């Protein structure tokens, strides 16, 4: 629905083949230099890097809190989210119903907590599937080159320009069966393409490295080279792509459910929002019906985007914050400040 840091316009432009004017070096800093097998960036190390970046730490804490709340749903929200209590309809937030109740008397807090399970599960599964497709397509295209590359590139470019949400709406309109699994597959099908292009350009820079050449000469299979040699060197970019896809998938799911194309019988943030819209919660002043599920959605997306922003900063040192000398305040001494400006600017090149 909107470009996320993992999927920003800039990333899409960094495609050394179709856009040779983007110097290939700009994509390189994120690539961990190939080192001996035992010294590769392992997962705990990556995690500790994340914790040391304030932005990703903030995002991780937020996401962690949301996941814990959702996992504790049976304890926190004992009321069945679908139970209609006709004695308590349309109540504002209060001690008995933390987030109020809907027009049908269902508890909004229960719906938000239980709905989070569906939303997160569908979002994570769709994102994982989309990332798998993106990584496979991107790396195989880059590694094999030639006609395979052309075809895969064409397919991903077509998926990039197709407006995903309208197409999904139309597919769901025709589909006689709906449900979580269908949703996961369809969302994944329409969210891998942008990432595949980015990952392809990454894999391209790795393809001609010595260690890949060595693996090829020693007769390793394509799959082993692609997934065993190339992939471990771009994990941080794949992780960031996954988070971007996660945000996208959660928003897709919510959007589709909100429009009434998800099936509507489960509990998820999108379904709650759909009912809020259907019950005219807005026109009757029942703000709690759409505010809380919407906030849950927004906070989850925010947490993921912050983690992603942190990854971006970690893997691209140029984006890390530099304290700039305060020289532009006094325009009168522009001549003397010019030196410091350029020094600060070029200082970022290391």
């Amino acid at each position, binding site marked *: *629905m*909107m*470009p996320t840091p993992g*999927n*920003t*316009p*800039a*990333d*899409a*432009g960094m495609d050394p083949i179709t*856009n*040779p*004017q*983007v110097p290939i070096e*700009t994509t390189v800093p994120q690539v961990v230099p190939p080192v001996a097998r035992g010294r590769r960036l392992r997962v705990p190390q990556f995690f500790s890097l994340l914790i040391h970046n304030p*932005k990703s730490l903030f995002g991780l804490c937020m996401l962690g809190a949301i996941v814990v709340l959702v996992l504790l749903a049976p304890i926190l929200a004992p009321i069945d989210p679908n139970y209609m209590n006709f004695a308590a309809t349309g109540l504002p937030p209060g001690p008995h119903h933390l987030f109020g109740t809907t027009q049908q008397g269902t508890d909004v807090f229960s719906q938000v907590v239980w709905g989070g399970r569906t939303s997160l599960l569908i979002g994570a599964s769709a994102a994982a599937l989309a990332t798998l497709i993106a990584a496979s397509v991107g790396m195989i295209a880059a590694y094999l080159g030639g006609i395979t590359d052309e075809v895969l590139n*064409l397919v991903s470019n077509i998926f*990039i*320009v*197709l*407006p995903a*949400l*309208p*197409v999904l*709406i*139309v*597919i769901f*309109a*025709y*589909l*006689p069966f709906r449900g979580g699994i269908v949703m996961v597959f369809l969302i994944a099908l329409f969210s891998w393409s942008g990432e595949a292009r980015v990952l392809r350009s990454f894999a391209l820079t790795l393809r001609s490295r010595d260690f890949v050449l060595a693996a090829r000469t020693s007769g390793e299979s394509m799959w082993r080279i692609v997934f065993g040699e190339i992939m471990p060197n771009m994990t941080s970019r794949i992780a960031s792509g996954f988070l971007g896809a996660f945000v996208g998938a959660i*928003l897709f799911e919510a*959007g589709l459910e*909100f*429009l009434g*194309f998800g099936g509507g019988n489960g509990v998820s943030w999108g379904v709650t929002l759909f009912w*809020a*819209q259907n019950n005219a919660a*807005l*026109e009757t*002043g029942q*703000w709690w019906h*759409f*505010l809380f599920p*919407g906030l849950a*959605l*927004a906070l989850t*997306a*925010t947490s993921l*985007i*912050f983690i992603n922003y942190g990854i971006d900063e970690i893997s*691209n040192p140029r*984006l890390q*914050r530099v304290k*700039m000398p305060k020289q*532009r305040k006094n325009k009168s001494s522009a001549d003397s400040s*010019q030196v410091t400006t*350029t020094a600060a*600017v070029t200082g*970022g090149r290391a």
Partner: protein
Amino acid sequence: MPFLYRRIAFYVIALWTSLTLNFLLPRLMPGKPIDAFYARYRLEIQNNPHFLDSLRIELGLPKTPLWQQYIQYIVNMLHGNFGISYSFYPTPVIDVIRTTLPWTLFLAGTATILTFLIGTFLGIVVAWRRGGKLDSLLPPVTMFASSFPAFFLALLLLYVLAYIGGWFPLEHSYSGGTDIGLNWPFLTDVADHAILPVAVIVLTGVGGWLLGMRNVMINTLAEDFITMAHAKGLSDFRVMMMYAARNAILPSLTGFAIALAYTVGGLVLIETVFSYPGVGFTLVQAAQGSDYPLVQALLMLITVCVLLANLFVDLIYARLDPRARTQ
């Protein structure tokens, strides 16, 4: 200009793919569209056995082999012959489109251009003053705004500004009583109705452009020619706009395709929230009402618009970057 020929060839392929997808989807699905229509008009069909036959012809679903239907379908689509809407029966689909398309073009065009301009400009400023107050404030704030689901932000704004505040209209693209035409009251009324939807798209979209521009700009600022420009003693503004931003904007332009797809997707939701009578809102209505001819036509229309916009950006791109032309 091989670059442009290649791009145009690509868009033709993309258009053909979406046309084919559009053709195959309803025919591959178990519940055939004609069945839905049959179910709805069962009484009429029982009373008049020829009703269905005439409908088959009228709705473009004759009993012929698939490949013949396909050719017929492509010919129909290229001629703008989209058949008859089920839900607005007997209005032709083309007439429904004629009333909805201008609204969406107006909304999407205004919003996309505004978002691009604001986001890119803020990105330039923020990258230029990296580490400054604006730089520590704007990226996180716009990021937070862009992580807001667009339709949720739309609901919020609608509730706070239109429902409680009463400063903006609650729905539709113009008020009932105004004369439609090029007169001042109508234009201000339309603008009044467009402010909230456009604001939602701009608020949620600006972050992406800002970050994209900022990140490329930071890389560009480290180039030698920037140092050179400073050394020549050019003014800061000139270096920022004419040296750094001019070069940093190219990757942003190539990202236009993705951004536009997002805008169109978001627009479907936003139009629904505001009951804005555009293509997105109509698409949702048509899909919910199983109005397949309308659904097909609208999807094709949306795709064509997105492809045309992309082609337009490519033209600009080729104009701006000589390397793309000689490639």
